[in-house]
């Protein structure tokens, strides 16, 4: 019997003193039962399995299913179970650690994981002193009592191990509390910042009255500016970094500046900005007329995704029609520019764009001298222009000036995080203590047996395969000497 629970310890706390109301007591007992804990653990696992499979079938990669009342209820029940179990067993653990039951019956000691029955010469006191010495030399903490002329010794080692499971369960409660606290007091949102501009709001998804999620703008209470967004590439044009050069302005002054990257966020006043996405906000064209007069023409870009999830870029006008059309008049001549297409990674040929990364943005431009006439070859192709490139058309020069990028940031404030991290640390410590530290007790009963002194020792541990050979050998050695 390698794993014998010390029954002498169990007996002491077995009696329940409560006279509570029946139903409340029944509920408490239900939550303190080990079977309930097992059912809850397996139910949580089973429900989670179902959710992952159903989500995958629906193509749903959101976490909405885990925020439904049913799932939260299950988590709450686990939390209650943990709390009730911890409270229920606390008194017992306290006694086992600090006020152990000293009484020892030889019959029970003989049933222990390891036991030893010896006789020795000398008085009970002399033998007791030897036993104490032997146990102390094996690093046991020794307590004793005299009862009916006999001496009972309780020796304990590794008592911190008693608290491993409590620490483990407590740490999970700390994580739960941190998670609830964080979700109540913190937020998760997004903010897009355009190069050369500042943002003073972020947007969060909130349920409206009909239960639909809608984006709601919230104030940041400071301003966030973007100097430049840049993608770094390796030789094969695989992105190796997404860098946003961010500035924080508070009270009209720049208070901090940081180039963030995917694993390197920026934090200010408890709010953290994480690199999340990017895109083109707008492009700018310049048309120079035959008279040398230049007009800057901005066009907005709308980012989207095609059926394969690849990014697509649609150029839209800044005017009311929403068409990417702008008309210039110079030297009495009128010319309408139409930006028909935007290729982020222009390579020419049939493929046009090599990838959806903005490696080499180019626009496909058409012009029309007789707008709003649309048909019969009214639109003349100018061709593809990359950034900085110009093309002439009947005295006009059309230039693709530049692209303006924006950076997409996740913005989060989570005041529960310190608790979460504390819980993480305690969890690892608790599990380590539970499995790698061993609480051992050796109880010894010493009494006169005829002319000699009889010594009965029993060793207990809740840890499977805990061994006492060396401890008991030391005891034998001391008594034989």
């Amino acid at each position: 019997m390698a794993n014998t629970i010390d029954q002498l310890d169990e007996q002491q706390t077995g009696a329940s003193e409560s006279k509570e109301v029946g139903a409340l007591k029944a509920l408490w007992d239900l939550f303190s039962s080990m079977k309930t804990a097992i059912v809850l653990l397996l139910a949580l696992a089973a429900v989670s399995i179902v959710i992952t499979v159903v989500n995958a079938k629906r193509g749903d990669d959101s976490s909405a299913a885990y925020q439904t009342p049913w799932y939260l209820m299950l988590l709450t029940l686990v939390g209650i179970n943990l709390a009730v179990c911890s409270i229920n067993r606390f008194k017992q653990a306290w006694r086992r650690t600090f006020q152990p039951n000293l009484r020892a019956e030889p019959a029970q000691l003989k049933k222990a994981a390891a036991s030893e029955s010896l006789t020795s010469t000398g008085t009970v006191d002399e033998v007791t002193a030897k036993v104490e010495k032997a146990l102390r030399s094996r690093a046991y903490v020794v307590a004793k009592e005299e009862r009916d002329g006999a001496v009972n010794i309780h020796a304990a080692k590794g008592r911190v191990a008693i608290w491993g499971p409590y620490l483990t369960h407590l740490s999970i409660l700390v994580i739960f509390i941190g998670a609830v606290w964080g979700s109540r007091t913190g937020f998760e949102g997004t903010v897009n910042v355009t190069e050369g501009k500042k943002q003073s709001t972020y947007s969060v998804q909130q349920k409206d009255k009909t239960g639909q999620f809608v984006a709601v703008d919230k104030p940041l209470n400071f301003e966030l500016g973007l100097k430049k967004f840049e993608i770094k590439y390796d030789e094969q044009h695989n992105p190796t970094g997404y860098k946003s050069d961010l500035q924080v302005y508070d009270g009209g002054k720049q208070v901090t500046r940081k180039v963030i990257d995917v694993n390197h966020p920026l934090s200010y006043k408890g709010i953290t900005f994480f690199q999340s996405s990017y895109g083109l906000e707008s492009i700018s064209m310049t048309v120079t007329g035959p008279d040398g007069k230049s007009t800057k023409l901005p066009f907005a870009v709308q980012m989207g995704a095609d059926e394969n999830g690849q990014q697509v870029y649609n150029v839209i006008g800044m005017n009311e029609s929403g068409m990417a059309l702008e008309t210039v008049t110079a030297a009495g001549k009128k010319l309408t520019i139409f930006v028909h297409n935007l290729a982020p990674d222009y390579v020419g040929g049939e493929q046009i764009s090599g990838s959806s990364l903005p490696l080499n943005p180019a626009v496909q431009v058409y012009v029309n001298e007789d707008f709003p006439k649309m048909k019969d070859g009214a639109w003349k192709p100018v061709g593809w222009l990359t950034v900085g490139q110009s093309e002439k058309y009947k005295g006009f020069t059309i230039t693709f000036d530049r692209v303006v990028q924006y950076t997409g940031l996740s913005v989060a404030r989570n005041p529960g995080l310190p608790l979460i991290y504390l819980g993480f640390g305690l969890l690892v410590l608790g599990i380590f203590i539970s499995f790698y530290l061993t609480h051992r007790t050796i109880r010894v009963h010493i009494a006169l047996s005829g002319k000699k002194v009889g010594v009965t020792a029993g060793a207990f541990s809740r840890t499977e395969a805990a061994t006492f050979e060396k401890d008991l050998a030391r005891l034998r050695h001391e008594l034989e000497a």
Partner: protein
Amino acid sequence: MTIQLGADVFKVAVGIYALAAILYLVYLSNKQKAIADAGRGVLIAGLLMNTAALVIRGVALGRVPFLNMYEYMISCIWGAAAVYLGVELITKNRFIGAFAAPFVTLAGFMAARLPYQEHIIMPALRSAWRVPHIASAILAYGAFAVAFMMAIMYLLAVKAEGNKESFWVSRIPSSKFIDQAIYRVIAFGFLMQTILILVGAIWAQMSWGRYWGWDPKETWSLITWLIYATYLHTRTMMGWRGRNSVMMALFGFLAVIFTLFGVNYLGGLHAYSAMK
């Protein structure tokens, strides 16, 4: 130092593992200690080749080879072989080699067939957290794999104990010993898996601003953790031993397999570790 060289060296390592497996299996049938000792020597040679494969790949790529499924598998196999040698040293039982060496070889054959070309590292993975994350994954899931193998040994041992004529009598440790060993290995795996999940959570917080997002991989690692937590509770609190307990260990490993391989079919942020 090229990727190709690393992959070739790994194939040689698998061949050496196969030879060790054969020697251990011969020992299982004829009980000649010299054969088992030869098996151990060959296994150590295989482990050295496996080490070389990892080092060559690491040098060729200029990073710790802990990223895609191929690297993960060859690291796991390295871990499994090393753990087995430790087990043999502690238990002095050479028959376990007849289970461990073929297991390592089989996993090696599977790993050698995975694509080993250079993998594009998405920027989110360029983090110092990657190393403890994957290292704890190797230890955790390696331990669970060892527990699974021992669970199968347990079933054989029970059969042997019921039948004195059985081939396995005197070749396999007692079922009680195996049962206890499974518990200890799972306890270790559980600690490692906890570290794995928590390091992943901290990393996710640093990269994406949320420590837990119910990504399928995250959720499945939690499911696996819950199953092993149940195993540990039934054992320490409800006194389960033997068959029921071992069945929980077998059940837990199914969840491990799904967490490692099946989840890739559910999509999510860990999809880059897919086999294709």
